[in-house]
């Protein structure tokens, strides 16, 4: 007999052995006893909690030759064949491999015939969520009113993928996550049966790795037994399972609170050297910070946290030197990093950056303090009325209006200076650019970013920032040719065209059309602001609510 992993060898064969789902076992057993057995069941829940097992036990209990009892006898031919998986009338179908509507049609053909040896024909469809929509629909009528000798048992981890029409035709049983202590108890039983020497603490570590799933816990147990043999030492368990040493977590938190960068990188290096998985380490860190929050918030945290006394005192000590708001921000940074790590190959770097961000967080000021400060400031403001216009509420708009004013003044000054040179009037440049844009949009948009240095009948000088894309593209011979043609058409003369490369510091040159547009926009915005601020309704609102203008937008 070849080796069977613990999860297969110790699969429960009776309702009594099924751990953690007592509510379901009782319901099923009562149903069998009272004769009120539905024709369609749906077992849902997380992985490894007993769905397939319960389906098989239910099948056995219904088919048992000793009558429909609350527990299958497990000795009669019917029970034995179902346990071995070769019963003629119990069909265990894999919903993920036989997903098509044709498979379901075949099933429906099969249903008509009475069972060959047992009481019922039982169809156990596992991973039923993978059936195609057509398959589900083909099943509907049969599921609603099957022949009396047929029972359906569906099992799935994802009930939300099942159409509601199917759900309403089944009796639904939700399997819960198995509590830690129950998993430990079952592991204890199995280790006794298998003659394995193992401490309760090690069993608890293994059970915790199972995270509510019995099969996960048993797979972990197998792994431990492969590594350690029949006698299990605790330190080997922690080493094998990569359960991060709690000391590392404490030291990380300490370094973060002390805002020191070098120790953080050191610790991450140690974590890597010891072969821990970065993502797992991040998850454990999140758990550690969560524990700190719990210790801050609750008085008797020992009930909520599964930790030893000494560790709790240390946690409490660490929790006192940090604010609750800071802890929350640390946790959000870690959570974001953890989800990024799932799909990246640079998990170590992501973790290092997250830790650096956490260390450089400015300490959060409690909300009450901020409110108190605001109140204080308000008191000051009512006392000394500032002169109107100076305390402009929006900083960006103030800066914008100042800038636009200064540029406006330079424009007016420049136009007076350069007036004699622009013999072809200034207004020609925008008209020219519009003309070009109509015919060759790309050239036109590039011209928009150029500064018209000289616009006359004989020559056209346009300035562009050095090395810019527009300059390089316009120097292209095809572009030049097209531009020359258009210039000739517009000006009706043959001006020479020159593209000039400007250095960045060309402040006293005519603005390009793009710049003019943005100046115009700023001017418009400043205009709107002046209007809004001087409007009586707005002034009244400000007074009543004691507010500040934050943003002005045109609707």
């Amino acid at each position: 007999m070849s080796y069977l992993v613990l999860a297969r060898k110790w699969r429960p064969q009776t309702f009594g052995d099924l751990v953690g789902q007592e509510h379901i076992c009782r319901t099923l057993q009562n149903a069998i006893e009272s004769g009120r057995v539905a024709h369609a069941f749906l077992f849902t829940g997380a992985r490894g909690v007993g769905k397939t097992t319960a389906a098989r036990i239910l099948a056995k209990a219904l088919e048992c030759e000793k009558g429909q009892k609350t527990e299958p006898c497990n000795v009669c031919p019917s029970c034995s064949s179902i346990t071995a998986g070769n019963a003629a009338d119990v069909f265990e179908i894999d919903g993920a491999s036989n997903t098509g509507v044709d498979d379901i049609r075949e099933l429906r053909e099969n249903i008509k015939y009475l069972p060959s040896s047992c009481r019922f024909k039982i169809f156990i469809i596992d991973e039923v969520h993978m059936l195609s929509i057509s398959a589900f629909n083909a099943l509907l009528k049969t599921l609603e009113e099957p022949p009396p000798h047929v029972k359906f048992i569906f099992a799935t981890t994802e009930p939300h993928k099942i159409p509601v029409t199917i759900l309403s035709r089944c009796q639904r049983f939700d399997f819960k996550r198995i509590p830690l202590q129950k998993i430990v108890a079952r592991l204890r039983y199995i280790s006794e049966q298998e003659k394995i020497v193992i401490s309760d603490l090690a069993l608890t570590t293994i059970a915790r790795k199972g995270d509510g799933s019995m099969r996960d816990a048993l797979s972990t147990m197998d792994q431990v037994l492969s590594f350690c043999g029949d006698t299990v030492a605790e330190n080997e368990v922690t080493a094998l399972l990569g359960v991060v040493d709690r000391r590392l977590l404490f030291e990380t938190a300490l370094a973060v609170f002390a805002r020191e960068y070098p120790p953080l990188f050191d610790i991450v290096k140690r974590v890597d050297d010891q072969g821990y998985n970065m993502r797992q380490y991040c998850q454990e860190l999140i758990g550690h910070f969560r524990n700190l929050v719990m210790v801050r918030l609750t008085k008797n945290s020992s009930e909520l946290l599964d930790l030893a006394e000494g560790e709790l005192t240390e946690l409490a000590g660490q929790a006192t030197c940090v604010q609750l708001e800071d802890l929350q921000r640390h946790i959000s940074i870690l959570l974001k990093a953890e989800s990024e790590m799932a799909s990246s190959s640079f998990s170590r770097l992501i973790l290092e950056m997250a830790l650096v961000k956490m260390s450089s967080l400015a300490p959060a000021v409690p909300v009450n303090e901020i409110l108190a400060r605001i109140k204080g400031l308000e008191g000051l403001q009512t006392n000394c009325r500032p002169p109107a216009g100076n305390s402009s509420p929006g900083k960006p708009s103030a800066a914008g209006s100042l800038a636009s004013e200064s540029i406006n003044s330079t424009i007016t000054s420049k136009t007076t200076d350069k007036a004699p040179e622009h013999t072809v009037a200034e207004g020609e440049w925008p008209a020219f650019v519009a003309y070009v844009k109509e015919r060759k949009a790309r050239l036109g948009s590039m011209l928009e970013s150029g500064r018209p240095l000289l616009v006359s009948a004989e020559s056209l000088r346009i300035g562009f920032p050095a090395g810019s894309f527009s300059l390089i593209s316009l120097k292209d011979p095809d572009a030049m040719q097209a531009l020359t043609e258009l210039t000739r058409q517009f000006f009706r003369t043959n001006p020479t065209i020159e593209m000039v490369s400007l250095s960045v510091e060309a402040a006293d040159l005519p603005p390009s059309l793009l710049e003019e547009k943005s100046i115009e926009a700023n001017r418009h915005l400043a205009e709107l602001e002046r209007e809004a601020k001087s409007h009586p309704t707005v002034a009244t609102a400000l007074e009543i609510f004691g507010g500040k203008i934050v943003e002005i937008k045109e609707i």
Partner: protein
Amino acid sequence: MPFSDIIGQETPVSVLRRSLATGKIAHAYIFDGIEGCGKMKTAMAFITAIFCNGTEGCGHCSVCRRLAACQHPDLHMVEPDGAFIKIDQIRNLQKELSYRPYEAKKKVCIIEAADKMNLSSANAFLKTLEEPPGDALLILLTSSLGSILPTILSRCQRLSFSSIPEAAIEAYLCGTGIPEETARIAASLAGGSLKSALEITLEQTVPNRKNLLERTIALSLSEIAPLFELAEEQGNDRDKTLELLDILTVFWRDVLLLLSGSPQVANKDLLPLLRKEADRTSLEKVMERIELVFRSRQALQRNVNPRLALEVLFMGLARS
């Protein structure tokens, strides 16, 4: 392929050795660890041991030689067909497993990049994984454990593979005749993966990267032509682009380390360049740049045109 050929990975190897000795071999394993750390080698060593004589592959019998050449009829390999492992591949596998083994005691299947199973194939695999027909052995390899369905993970015995220590990689490279200086840099750039280290030495990454880095750092928005040239040059091949992103990530991480006062940089021979860069930037800016590189990498994984991705990245880097 004996177990002793495998570098590092003491824990998984001793678990497998122990299970060979006691005969308690599970029916499904999942090996997880970064790419190029030895998962396939270990899986092959394990299978050779099982098929050959039960403890260690001898290496010269017909069985061992055929396994090494992947020609054994009872060894099946499943790898992604394009981007995914499709459901037909799984159905074929189920069909193969339902037959008795031709020669060996059991049928074995290695599933490479098991995280690339799409949803239908992963679910189709569940029943087989839980109770494989006959006495089959299934070994799943993955470098991205987070992408594996928990229902699959729950059915396997998990063996974690750690990254290989730098010293071990350096020693291995020197052993294959690579000069010591190159070996040292390649080992420190490899990030724990022997495969990466070998690729780095093969593709002359060590001498080339200084040039690439200097060119990337010098990019600015006022001189736009070099930016587009560099993007075109590096963007004509997706692998080349990914390699450049890796070089940039390692480089900026080194700058981050220097700014935080931690001296263990990976690009040990580029210390002056690193120092110069560190002097003219701040911690936040460096982290911003690293984020930009990550985003480009994510975009590439979603099949964005590599040249465009690089152009956007370079403009972002030049701007900050």
